């Protein structure tokens, strides 16, 4: 992890990005349609300076299946889904797969 820089990126629609901009984050990608979102995320995945990606839940939901899997299988950068379920479901699923029991409850 040491080699990975530590910047925070935000992916979301215009409304979503605004608040983060207020808090001083510069790396904000405003996307309006799924295709654009996918391009942006590909770019982010290639950028080794980004450590955490904040992504709007419904944008994440609209990504293609392969890209979602790619995101899920990588530990870096970490994607934090904000809004809606906050990625709880995915986490549960992973726990079930690794341990065999749903430890979440």
């Amino acid at each position, binding site marked *: *992890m*040491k080699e*990975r820089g*530590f*910047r*925070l990126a935000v992916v979301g629609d215009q409304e979503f990005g*605004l*608040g*983060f*901009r*207020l*808090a*001083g*984050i*510069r790396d904000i990608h405003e996307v309006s349609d799924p295709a654009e979102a996918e391009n942006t995320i590909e770019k982010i995945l290639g950028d080794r300076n980004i*450590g*955490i990606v*904040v992504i709007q839940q419904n944008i994440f939901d609209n990504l293609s299946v392969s890209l979602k899997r790619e995101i899920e299988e990588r*530990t*870096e950068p*970490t994607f*934090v889904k*904000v*809004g809606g379920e*906050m*990625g*709880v479901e995915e*986490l549960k699923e*992973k*726990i079930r*797969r*690794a*341990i065999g029991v749903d*430890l*979440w409850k």
Partner: protein
Amino acid sequence: MAIDVKPTRSELIKLKRRIKLSEKGYELLKMKRDGLIMEFSETLSMARGVLEKLRESYENAEQKISIAKAIDGTIMVRSAALAAKSEPEFELRSKNIMGVVVPVVKRKRVRKKLSEREYGIIGTTARIDEATSAYEELIDAILEAAEIETTLLRLLEEIERTKRRVNALEFKVIPEMKEAKKYIEFALQEMERDNIIRLKKIKAKAEA
């Protein structure tokens, strides 16, 4: 298993040594797996709280910015946002849990004082300040969530890997070696009996 070992005494000794080693490794790996799972369930109960906090602060932030936008107008908020430019700083350290390296995020001053914000105090309203504070809090929560989520995922990965190794040893490697050992022992005994018979025959011939 296709038995492809030579039934010699030296092979047998080697095998015995390897079985002993594998069994030791198996015990150790089992302990590691249990330890990892314990660590994991601890982290998991922490994660629940953190995710809950994340959800709360997101809702709070949403609300605050909506109010700011409704009363002061979107353009006002936007211009304030454009003025903000000092990026929050983080520091990334790593921690080692049973051979799993997990990140520890150190927050360096995400929250700024009112006077440190880049848009002036006079130009904007309290609502925008509140929204900014709420978002700064949200970022705090996000960082925490990211840290704990990465930890969970790394632990999961390691658990899976360890489990696979434990199972491979238990159900494949050790039984195979044991079978080979049995085979060698049997073959050696067989050779011994052969030899005895042969000697007896020779003796009988010599006496005759």
